[in-house]
């Protein structure tokens, strides 16, 4: 099989549609993973021992099972109990939920790294619990977490091709469709690889930069 540049250019618009869905799925999944992870981490710290254990085991369960299985569950099994999700929504929930168990660990470590004296100062200044979190702890805990969170963002991005298994027409799936219709694999699949590389290399540089910028100074 020979590389055909003209053909490659001709399928570019169709692949771009896939790119947009890939980016959508990554960003929406990340927003979900980052917020849900924070709620999980704070929830574990403020709730009693029993709910905290439940959150812990729930998180472990999600983390220790493959994302692909979870995607099948969300898309193919939930309709059996009357919950029908569009492929993209199921995919975003799947990625977001799965990676929230990882980001929760990042948040937990970040929160535990805040000096005990900060909690005590907040108490001595009579801060209510909510403001102790929002005005004292979280603003200090988050900057050192940024590099780790950015790494999970890149990982989520690289995992989006899994969504093709639940019929989301993201980049990988659009390439597969093109290939099936034209019987040419070399151009679409190479272009998918190049696209992921083109995003991954700068993001590695970005995460190195973040590492320097936000690493704890003390």
């Amino acid at each position, binding site marked *: 099989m020979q590389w055909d540049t003209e053909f490659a250019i001709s399928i570019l618009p169709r692949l771009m549609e896939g790119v947009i869905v890939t980016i959508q799925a990554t960003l929406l999944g990340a927003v979900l993973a980052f917020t849900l992870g924070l709620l999980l981490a704070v929830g574990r710290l403020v709730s009693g021992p029993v709910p905290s254990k439940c959150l812990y085991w729930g998180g472990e369960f999600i983390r220790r099972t493959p994302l692909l299985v979870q995607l099948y569950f969300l898309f193919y099994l939930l309709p059996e109990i009357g919950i029908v999700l569009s492929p993209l929504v199921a995919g975003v929930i799947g990625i977001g939920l799965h990676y929230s168990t990882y980001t929760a660990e990042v948040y937990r470590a970040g929160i535990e790294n805040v000096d005990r004296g900060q909690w005590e100062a907040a108490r001595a*200044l009579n801060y209510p619990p909510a403001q102790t979190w929002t005005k004292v702890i979280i*603003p200090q805990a988050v900057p050192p977490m940024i590099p780790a969170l950015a790494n999970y963002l890149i990982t989520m991005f690289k995992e989006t091709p899994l969504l093709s298994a639940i019929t989301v027409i993201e980049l990988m799936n659009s390439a597969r469709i093109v290939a099936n219709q034209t019987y040419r694999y070399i151009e679409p699949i190479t272009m998918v690889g190049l696209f992921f590389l083109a995003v991954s290399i700068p993001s590695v540089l970005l995460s190195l930069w973040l590492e320097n910028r936000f690493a704890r100074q003390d």
Partner: protein
Amino acid sequence: MNDNTMISFENASKSYGALQVLRNLNFHVDPGEKISLIGPSGSGKTTILRILMTLESLTSGYVLVDGQQLWHEEKQGQLVPASEKHLQNVRADIGMVFQHFNLFPHLSVLKNVTEPQRISRGVAAPEAKEAAVELLEMVGLGDKLDHYPGQLSGGQKQRVAIARALALKPRIMLFDEPTSALDPELVSEVLNVMRKLAHETDMTMLLVTHEMSFAREFSDRVIFFDKGVIVEQGAPEQIFQNPCEERTRNFLHKFIA
């Protein structure tokens, strides 16, 4: 018990597991009184302040602040352990200055002093700022409003911490070795501020310190602790010149030598 008492410890005890840190402690502090707590390391001085600031709970006994139970509240004629709400009410009268400052590193000096007023006393922004600027000028940091704690010396940090605590208008101020984390040449700038507070305000003050000469001029009364009990207390002249107890003498000797 005297009605006109700002702080009372009544048979107060504190243990960490098997380690008893305070043993049936009884003492009273009058409104406006300036008290120094001295004693060897591990004698329980910090623990007393932390119990008052509600950072540490009591194991048994009672603590009263301005006649109100601190760690208990009355429910249907019975004393029960205090709720968070009750602690919040009583705590509003108390401010604390820590050995390691505990400033908020992500906030400017000005914000360190305005934000607590806004959050825990609901002061409007312009008034909070006005009060903060006035206090920061009082501690000699009127020119550092936009600096961050990381840009300040230890002495400057501790002065910001004092301004921050004062901004909430406490009636009781607790100082836990406020100068012991400072380089020697920075100690006096903090002591000067405290001296001014002692002279110019009627706040009740409890100071834990190893600065004996400052304790002597600052306080109305000095209490010497050892192993969680009060060994001896009295006017500074008496304690420093004429201690009655052997243990006090031995302890003070180390500071003269």
